[in-house]
C-alpha cells in the first residue's frame, strides 16, 4: 500500500528513507504489524480454536496452540442448546426493522430541518440534540416504565419488536449526520425541482435521497451494528426466551452451559458483525469520522 502522497507527518519521508532511519522504520513496522496482529487477532484465534478443544484440553497447562483433536461438537451443541438459529433470526429481524424506521423517520426529520425549515425547527433540533447529553443508563428506568405502559394508549410493549425499533428512532446523532449531509445539497437544486412542479416528498425521493446514498449506507450499517451489540435494553424489553437477541440469549445460558459451549456461541454471534465490517469497512470508517472531524 503506497503512502498518501505529499502530506508530511511528524517525521519526514526523507528521514525514513535514509540509512539509519530506514532501518529503524522497517524494524518498527515489523514490530507493529506483529504486535497488533497478536493483540487484536490473537484473542480471536484463541476463542475460535478454544471452542474446538475439549474442556480438558482447555484447562491444561501449558495451553496447546492448536487443538489436538479439533472437533465441532461445542459449536453444534451450542447451536442446538441455545437455539442460536432463532436468536440470530430475532437479532436480524430487530436490526432490519431498526434500519427501516431510522431511515424513514430520521431521514424525513433531517430533510425537514435542512430544507423545509418550518418555524421553531431549530428549537426542536436543539431539543433532540440535547438528548445526546443524557446518559442512556439514566433514562433506562423511566423508559422501561414508559414501555410497559405506553402513555395514552396504555399498551404493554414488552416482547414486541416496536420496543426496540421506536426508541432507536431517537438517535439524534443520525439526524445530525443526515442534516449535515442534506445541508451540503445546494438549495438551487431544490428550487429547480420546485419549478418543475415537484412537491417536497418527490424532491426528497428523486433528488435528495439518490445523492445521499453514502450517508444512508453509514446510518444503516450503524443501526445494524448497534442492535447487534446492544445488551441492556433488549435484555429488559425482550424478557421471553423466544424473543431474545443473540447477546442476551448467550448471557442467559451462561450459567448453565459449559464454558466452551458459551465461547462457541460467542464466536457464532460475532460472525455476522465481523462479516459486515469486512465488507463495509470503508463506509464504516468514513462514517465514524464524518461526524467529528471538520468543523
Amino acid at each position, binding site marked *: 500500500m503506497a503512502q498518501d502522497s505529499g502530506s508530511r507527518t511528524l517525521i519526514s519521508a526523507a528521514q525514513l528513507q535514509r540509512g539509519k532511519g530506514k532501518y529503524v522504520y522497517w524494524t518498527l513496522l515489523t514490530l507493529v504489524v506483529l504486535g497488533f496482529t497478536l493483540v487484536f487477532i490473537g*484473542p480471536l484465534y484463541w*476463542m475460535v480454536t478454544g471452542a474446538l478443544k475439549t474442556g480438558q484440553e482447555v484447562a491444561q497447562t501449558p495451553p496447546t496452540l492448536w487443538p489436538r483433536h479439533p472437533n465441532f461438537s461445542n459449536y453444534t451443541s451450542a447451536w442446538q442448546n441455545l437455539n442460536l438459529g432463532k436468536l440470530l433470526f430475532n437479532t436480524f429481524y430487530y436490526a432490519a426493522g431498526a434500519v427501516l424506521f431510522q431511515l424513514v423517520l430520521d431521514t424525513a426529520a433531517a430533510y*425537514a430541518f435542512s430544507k423545509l425549515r418550518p418555524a421553531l425547527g431549530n428549537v426542536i433540533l436543539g431539543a433532540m440534540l440535547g438528548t445526546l447529553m443524557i446518559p442512556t*443508563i439514566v433514562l433506562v428506568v423511566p423508559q422501561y416504565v414508559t414501555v410497559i405502559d405506553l402513555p395514552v394508549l396504555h399498551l404493554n410493549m414488552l416482547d414486541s419488536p416496536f420496543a426496540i425499533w421506536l426508541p432507536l428512532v431517537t438517535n439524534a446523532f443520525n439526524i445530525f449526520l443526515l442534516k449535515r449531509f442534506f445541508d451540503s445539497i445546494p438549495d438551487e437544486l431544490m428550487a429547480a425541482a420546485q419549478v418543475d412542479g415537484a412537491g417536497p416528498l418527490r424532491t426528497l425521493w428523486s433528488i435528495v435521497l439518490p445523492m445521499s446514498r453514502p450517508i444512508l449506507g453509514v446510518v444503516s450499517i450503524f443501526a445494524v451494528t448497534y442492535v447487534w451489540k446492544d*445488551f441492556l435494553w433488549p435484555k429488559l424489553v425482550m424478557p421471553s426466551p423466544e424473543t431474545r437477541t443473540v447477546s442476551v440469549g448467550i448471557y442467559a445460558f451462561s450459567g448453565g452451559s459449559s464454558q466452551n459451549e458459551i465461547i462457541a456461541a*460467542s464466536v457464532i454471534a460475532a460472525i455476522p458483525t465481523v462479516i459486515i465490517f469486512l465488507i463495509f*469497512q470503508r463506509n464504516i470508517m468514513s462514517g465514524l469520522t464524518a461526524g467529528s472531524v*471538520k468543523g
Partner: protein
Amino acid sequence: MAIITATRPVDRSSAAAPARARRGRKIRDNLTGYTFLAGAILCFAVFTWYPMVRGIIMSFQKTRRGVTTWVGLDNYTRIFADPSFWPAWKNTVYFTVLALVVGYAVPFFVAILLNELRHAKGYLRILVYLPVMLPPASALFLFKFYAYDPSDAGLFNAVLKFLHLPTSQWMQSPGATMPAMVIASTWMNMGSAVLIYLASLQNIPGELYEAAELDGAGLWRRIWNVTIPQTRLILGLLAMMQIVATMQVFVEPLILANGAGTQDSATTVAYLIYQHGFFQNDLNGAAALGVVMLGALAVFSAFYLRLTTKND
C-alpha cells in the same frame, strides 16, 4: 404513511391577495415541514423527552399496590444508605480514571504511530477496529473464560508465566478486578478513538512539522508543540465523550464479575441502578440514583467546560 399527505402541489400565490396568500403559503409550508417531522417528534416525545421528566418525578414518588404517592426525599435517603452506594461510586470513578489514563493515552499514541507508518495502513486500521464490531457479550465471555482464567491455563496467566512474571487471580482478586475490566474495555473500544484521532492527525498541515524541525525541535517537542495543540479540540471532545461513556460502565461488571464481584469490588453505579430497578423491585430508588448520576455528570461537565474554555 403519514408522509404521503404532505405532497400537495406547491402554492403559486396569486397577485390578487398577496398578503393573505403569502400567509396561507407559510402555514402550508410549516404544515408540510411538521408532517415530515411528526414521526421523529413523536418518538422523541414518548421515548426520550417524557421519560426524562418522568425519571425526575418518579424519584420523589413511591408506588405501592398501584397507588402512587409523593414521598419527598425518601428514595434518595434509601439510596444513600445502601451499603453498596459508596463502593459503587468509588469503583465507577476508579474505572473512569483508569480508563482515561489507559483508554485515552493509548489510542492517541497508537494513532500517532499508525500515522507515521507508510505501509500496511489499511490492515492495521482494520485490526484496531475489529474488536469494536464484536458484540460486547462475545468479547467479554472471551475475556472471562479464556483470558482471565485464574489457573495457569488462562491466556494472560500463560503469557505472564512465560515471561516469568507473577500470575494473577484476575476477577477473583478484588484488587485486580478493576484493572482487568479496564483492559477488556479498552481492547473492545479503542478502535473508534484511534480512527477519529487518525483523521484529525491527517488534517495537520505538514508545514508546521517542517517549520518545527527547521527550528530544531526533536520528536517529542514536535508531538508536544505541534501534534497536541493541533488536535486539542478533538482531544477535548473525545475525553468528554469517553468519560460520560465510561461512567455508565455496565456490561463489563455484569459479565466479567457477575455484577458485583467479590465484596462489591466490581459494583458500578450503572449496575446498582439495574440492581435496584430490576431485582429489588425498587424502580423509584433506581430513578433517584439515575438523577444523582445525572447531577454528578452535569457538575462535572460544567467544571470541565469551564476548565477548558478558560485556557483560551
